[in-house]
């Protein structure tokens, strides 16, 4: 059993894609607490997205259990309560947005939760305003830029007033401006956040805990060691910040030198 009082938890989860020899997730335990901010780093194809899909009930693991607020979720139906309180931001915003205008897309969730059209509209407008997107309200979603689409898809999730936000490679394909704005917004949000990304500096800027995922296992970041990297930044000349909230152990600090 995972620790009591957690928001979302996986217990002993094993998942193997049909036809593959090795499970992509192998007896994984994972816990996300209320308001906890966790980053998950790992190479492509290591099972990061599968982990999200298992949490959301889109994939069913071969063994193990998903818990939401200490309730075991067994059947497809059980996951509906989780869907109301946990929002998933897809890697590709084009997979998420399908309404003709931004306002309609953001209002879609509240309508499903039983809000009247007027209420849904109001909540959508408010959410867009909070994210600084009011001027996009009447725009055709399909014609937005990649960065705008990403922010609108964040709005479609935030309008549900979730307790937790799962973000799948949120900074992929974003220009520096949108990326900075996204980090700012994420840091203002008062809810649990789980981000998977290989954008290390995004994770460092937004999360308290960082886990690594590889060979089917999820391990806390103290195993992942920090080291120097030759790294070119095409925008090196423009001001950019690299916050790093991870507390280094003295050993790692030494290695960093």
């Amino acid at each position, binding site marked *: 059993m995972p620790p009591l009082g957690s928001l979302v938890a996986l217990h002993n989860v094993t998942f193997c894609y049909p036809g593959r020899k090795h499970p992509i997730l192998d007896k994984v335990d994972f816990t996300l607490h209320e308001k906890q901010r966790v980053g998950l780093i790992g190479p492509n194809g290591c099972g990061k997205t599968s982990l999200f899909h298992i949490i*959301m009930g*889109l994939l069913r693991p071969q063994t193990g259990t998903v818990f939401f607020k200490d309730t075991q979720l067994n059947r497809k139906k059980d996951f*509906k309560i989780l*869907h*109301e309180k946990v*929002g*998933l931001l*897809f890697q590709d915003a*084009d*997979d*998420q*947005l*399908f*309404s*003709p205008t931004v306002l309609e897309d953001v209002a*879609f*969730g509240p*309508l*499903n*939760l039983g809000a009247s059209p007027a209420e849904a509209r109001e909540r959508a407008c408010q959410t867009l305003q909070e994210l600084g997107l009011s001027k996009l309200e009447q725009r055709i979603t*399909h014609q937005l830029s990649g960065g705008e689409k990403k922010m609108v898809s964040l709005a*479609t*999730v935030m309008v*549900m007033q979730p307790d937790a936000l799962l973000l799948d490679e949120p900074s992929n394909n974003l220009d520096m401006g949108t990326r900075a704005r996204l980090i700012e917004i994420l840091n203002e949000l008062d809810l649990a956040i789980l981000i998977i990304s290989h954008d290390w500096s995004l994770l460092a800027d937004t999360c308290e805990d960082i886990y690594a995922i590889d060979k089917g296992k999820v391990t806390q970041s103290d195993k992942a060691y920090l080291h120097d990297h030759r790294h070119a930044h095409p925008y090196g000349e423009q001001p950019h910040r690299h916050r790093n909230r991870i507390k280094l152990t003295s050993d790692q600090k030494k290695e960093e030198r």
Partner: protein
Amino acid sequence: MTFEKFSQGESLLHRTDTRVKLVSAISLTLVIALCQSFYTSLAGLTVGLLLLTFSRLNLRFVFWRLMLVNSFIAFLWITLPLTYPGDALCVVGPVTLSKQGVALAALISIKANAIILFFITLLATSTVVDLGHGLESLRLPKKLCLILLFSYRYIFVVHQEYHRLLRAAKLRCFKPRTNLHTYRTYAYLFGMTLVKSWNRAERVGQAMMLRGFHGRFYSLEEKTVTKVDVIFLIIMISAAIGFAYIELMK
């Protein structure tokens, strides 16, 4: 998505040349579809079952497929005996069952099942790719064969695209019901899929042009017919002629 459930296998029917199977299926189906006698249709069903044993397919899958396809036939069994004009077979309270209606429902059932068996054993044992090339060498218009093959290629891509959108809607607590909100949502989901397909068609067109396409498709196929194929074809055509003989003698 497993659409081509029966196309994988090692049986004689899986190995037989697709063109041979196409010609066989068309001639057998034609005779049985047009026949009016029980004898002919039963002979057809027998040949169908015989082919099934040769195909060595998973009988459970075949059974379920037959059940699914028979749903329309079931509708005929419910309605035809009650509505078809004819002599009373028996009277249950206010309901009269028509003798001719029952006979017709039975005849249609036998014919339809015989034809589905031809289909499963002769056509579904090939991949759609082979069937497309087979139809092309049987002189079906080239454009039509290309549309068949390209549609087949992209059905899976489009289906996935639609499913990703539907998944996003469901994660945002979309519960399909009988109301306008539901129909509007499905319209948007399909509309967006259509827009994506439209854009994809443009990109694929560009990819074709960059690889030297200039309005002509060339074929790579050069399949040879074996002796076994010829014998198979002769047997199947003889069966079809046999059915026609039975039908005309009645």
